[in-house]
């Protein structure tokens, strides 16, 4: 009985997910060490920033001692980790509120933007990629590949500004900045999703082209299935693995890329918070923000890997 349970596919899957979650610990330790080290060696004294440039030297020194800034590097790092494990990322140097609270307040907006960006990218990229692949070298295929090339090449910030010019100032369709309604969400998510859409289009096309040459597609046609069923049922599911990989990576890229887009559209997300924090040497917020984005990206990657198993039974068999 026990043997049966340990051999069952569901059990193996859970065990795999558990192991992957354990692996997050070294990953997060690595990320925290990197970001702590960088902030530690960045010029600028937090005590001085807190008290202002003109504060007396004695007061600054007293605060340094109080904050533990005179302790050796590893003592400080250990304290940071120990506090972070309890959910305490320190207090923001500018607002004096806990950094974790500041970040959590901004996190939903960033997730919303990244998720909408990915959604836009998937909804545009996958259908165009499929049609391009089924009509290779057609006018449609050529046009969409040119557009995809433009899409990946166009810088985010430039596209954002151009969209504001066209849709907010000339056409007055959407608000140029701000947060709250669906109308506010459209331009930022299009801006952030364009290059991902282009990448996903190209990946879908090449993956589909690879798959439709396979013998089992010929088998499906030989059964008398219509081309639509052959493509959607037999080809797409096989083509999906590399596409899902790219989508997962794009999501991470969007989390990071959100920094620029959030700045252009005054989007109240983690990215903009971090830009401000870096400018003001608000190191608890920067450290916490990097940790948060890294953790989100790792979890998304794990989800992608779990998704593989549902797409391809051969991969599921390998998860032990």
């Amino acid at each position, binding site marked *: 009985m026990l043997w049966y349970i340990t051999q069952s596919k569901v059990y193996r899957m859970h065990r795999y997910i558990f192991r992957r979650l354990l692996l997050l610990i070294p990953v997060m330790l690595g990320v925290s060490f990197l970001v702590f080290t960088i902030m530690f060696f960045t010029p600028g004294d937090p005590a001085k920033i807190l008290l202002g440039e003109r504060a007396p030297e004695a007061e600054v020194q007293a605060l340094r001692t109080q904050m533990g800034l005179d302790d050796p590097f590893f003592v400080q790092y250990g304290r940071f980790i120990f506090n972070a494990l309890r959910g305490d990322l320190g207090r923001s140097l500018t607002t004096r509120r806990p950094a974790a609270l500041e970040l959590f307040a901004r996190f939903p907006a960033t997730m919303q933007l990244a998720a909408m960006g990915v959604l836009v990218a998937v909804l545009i990229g996958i259908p165009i990629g499929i049609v391009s692949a089924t009509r290779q070298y057609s006018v449609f295929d050529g046009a969409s590949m040119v557009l995809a090339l433009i899409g990946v090449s166009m810088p985010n910030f430039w596209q954002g500004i151009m969209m504001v010019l066209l849709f907010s100032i000339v056409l007055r369709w959407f608000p140029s900045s701000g947060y709250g309604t669906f109308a506010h969400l459209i331009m930022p998510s299009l801006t952030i999703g364009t290059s991902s859409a282009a990448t996903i289009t190209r990946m879908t096309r090449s993956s589909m082209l690879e798959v439709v040459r*396979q*013998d*089992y597609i*010929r*088998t*499906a*046609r*030989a*059964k*008398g*299935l*219509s081309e639509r069923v052959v493509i959607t*049922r*037999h080809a797409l*599911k*096989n083509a999906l693995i590399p596409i899902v990989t790219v989508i997962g990576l794009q999501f991470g890229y969007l989390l990071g890329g959100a920094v620029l887009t959030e700045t252009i559209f005054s989007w109240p997300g983690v990215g903009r918070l971090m830009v401000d924090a870096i400018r003001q040497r608000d190191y608890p917020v920067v450290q916490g923000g990097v940790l948060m984005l890294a953790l989100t990206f790792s979890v998304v990657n794990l989800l992608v890997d779990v998704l593989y198993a549902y*797409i*391809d*039974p*051969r991969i599921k*068999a390998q998860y032990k």
Partner: protein
Amino acid sequence: MNDVLLDIRDLRVTYTTEEGLVVAVDDLNLQLRRGETLGLVGETGAGKTTTALSIMQLVPSPPGRIETGEIFFDGEDLRRKRLEDIRNVRGNRISMIFQDPMTSLNPVLTVGFQIEEAIMLHQRLSQRQAGRKARDMLKLVGIPEGRAGDYPHEFSGGMRQRVGIAMALSCNPELLIADEPTTALDVTIQAQVLELMRRLRSEFGTSMLLITHDLGVVAEACDSVAIMYAGAAVETADTERLFTNPRHPYTRGLFGSIPSLDEDVPRLSPIKGIMPDPTELPTGCRFHPRCPAATGICAERTPVMVAVEEGHEVDCMIYEGLVPEARIGEKED
């Protein structure tokens, strides 16, 4: 009812490649009678698979193109049918078993579903009935029905080929095209699969076009044989006649390449040379550069199919009386 189920006339299929136009099938004529198994024999590149795909109207296009010819199936020219009508024939009245069982099943769908799918498409059955039938078909080919929910990678090559056979026979087709069904399998498994195909074929009364390069398989399974060389049939006869009395120099060459248990020959005599480059087929008789009997005329004139006896046709000028037969079979040193 017509006695001839499949009648291929003057079929010509080409592929456009970077090296030039490849004539894969050239003026092929073939007939398959109802209930019979016809072996289509030839080397790799002789155009056997292209012939099969032409019948299914599945020649990949581009680069392939059926240029001329007619493919009559049950009296109707498949080339003139509309796409929807062809789909209705595929998998239903004509189905196909492919060469490589490792790659011809979809890796992300269960084998049960892949069989069920064809049944659902062509027969008015509910999903439950189709599922039932799919499991019955699996049982019929010797796979426990409980494995219907497994994926192709969980089966061995021989079992996958059985799944392929179950899939092909699930709609009880009139014609089964088997494209080298045993080539990719171990010798011991080959025999099992051949035996299974023979048993099911007689059970279902299916006619079969068996494509192979293995004359042993032909002797086992076929009623008649067509020998193909460089895109065309060079000799057709019933199996016994062809095996006892091969006429075309190429056919004789094929038999000369098989070791025999009864005769004590110091060396096999393989056919000299290699298959011609399909972008530059020789003029006249395509086999003349490799033919031990070839004379000057063979490079100039294209031979015509001649009936040497009832039901035995040969595409060689020896039998048109234009080339002396004497040199055939002589050893060249």
